[in-house]
């Protein structure tokens, strides 16, 4: 899906309708897809570029998803692992919407609590709820603190 630009840069083919997620932290593209529930068995037409040179980030990943516009809660999830990502909604080859990602103060139903004893890991009708702190994600039910490897806890 990528080809060498004669001027020396890398280009990824444009899409007609869908979403382009640019400025993803290098190496996180596959995690972004996992968060979006896109696996080998789903039907989306995808373009993925990893470790592309970026003026801002040094290296970055890019994901293009055809015929799918991301919802706000999906964007929240991406913010956790790619805080500099830019989301472009494409309609008929044009950028119809452009937005950054922002980690919300509270994450509801986004991250699974790693504490097996937490009430949110039972059949109770509640979603996990974490407040976002500088030192990590704090479970508002059991007080567990997720400091590392947040991607592996994303639902």
């Amino acid at each position, binding site marked *: 899906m990528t080809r060498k630009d004669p001027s020396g840069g890398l280009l990824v083919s444009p899409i007609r309708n869908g979403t382009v997620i640019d400025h993803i932290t290098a190496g996180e593209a596959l995690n972004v897809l996992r968060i979006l529930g896109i696996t080998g068995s789903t039907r989306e037409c995808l373009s993925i570029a990893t470790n592309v040179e970026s003026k801002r980030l040094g290296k970055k990943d890019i994901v293009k998803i055809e015929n799918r516009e991301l919802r706000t809660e999906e964007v929240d999830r991406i913010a956790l692992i790619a805080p500099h990502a830019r989301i472009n909604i494409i309609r008929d080859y044009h950028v119809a919407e452009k937005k950054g990602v922002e980690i919300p103060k509270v994450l509801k139903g986004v991250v699974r609590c790693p504490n097996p004893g*937490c009430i949110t890991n039972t059949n109770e009708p509640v979603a996990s709820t974490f407040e976002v702190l500088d030192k990590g994600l704090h*479970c508002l039910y059991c007080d*567990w603190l997720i400091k590392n490897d947040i991607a592996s806890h994303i639902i």
Partner: protein
Amino acid sequence: MYHIISIRDFERSDLDYLLDRAEEFDTLGYRSRALEDKLAALLFFEPSTRTRMSFATAMARLGGRWISVDSVEASSIVKGETLADTIRVLSSYADTIVLRHPKEGAARLASEFATVPVINAGDGAGQHPSQTLLDLYTIRQSMPIDGIDVGLLGDLRYGRTAHSLALALSLYGVTLHTIAPGGLEMPANITLELRERGTEVIEHADVEEVIRDLDVLYVTRIQRERFPDSASYYNVASSYRITPDLLTGVRENLMILHPLPRAGEIDPAVDRTPYARYFEQAKNGVPVRMALLHEVMK
């Protein structure tokens, strides 16, 4: 509505206020009819003797009544009912719900579904705020809490009473000394939180090196189920046993506390020393829980 869920929800002024209220009930000799027309639901999904009976006693001493579920086997939980549904239903029966549950965060969840106040009576390895208040109350009966040296001994990893107490003490400028067997140390995030709150936390390898510098020694049970076999349990447990010999040269005002039940951490011979205050501590559960019940239902 006023719920009592976690010690983290309290400012120092809230704690002092509740301790003052408990003291008033204590000096009244428990003669109060303040909750005469009130009903408390005691919902205990885990074994408990002191907590459950002292809540029931506190209700009775305030002239109120209570209904109770004492085990999971006797409740609709065995039929697959969620805690959320149980709480919704009980909210329509009683004026407050006192909950003991094996899962952490259960009381927080209950407070979201209840239409009456919820008091957390212990949620898994999480919080046990009424125990913390009675611990503080017992200390305050003998000395001002500010600036004292408190030793926390035993299972500091899973012991919820130690976590709650440490967080509450951090509001009083105390120095905390932690003494725990390998693998049962205070969780790093709690130690970090305590230090962020400005509390000095000093870790010690054994109790002997610090006991002479303490005003309070808070002993918790080392739980047998945390060890792979009996031999390793006894090995560790015997090295954390408080005996009269160990108390030679300690500060005159030292008080030894234990949330009870004790397994073998405190030699019964210690009971006869002036330092043993754990039975008084258990007795203080009544005025403290009277204050809590009265506060949420008044």
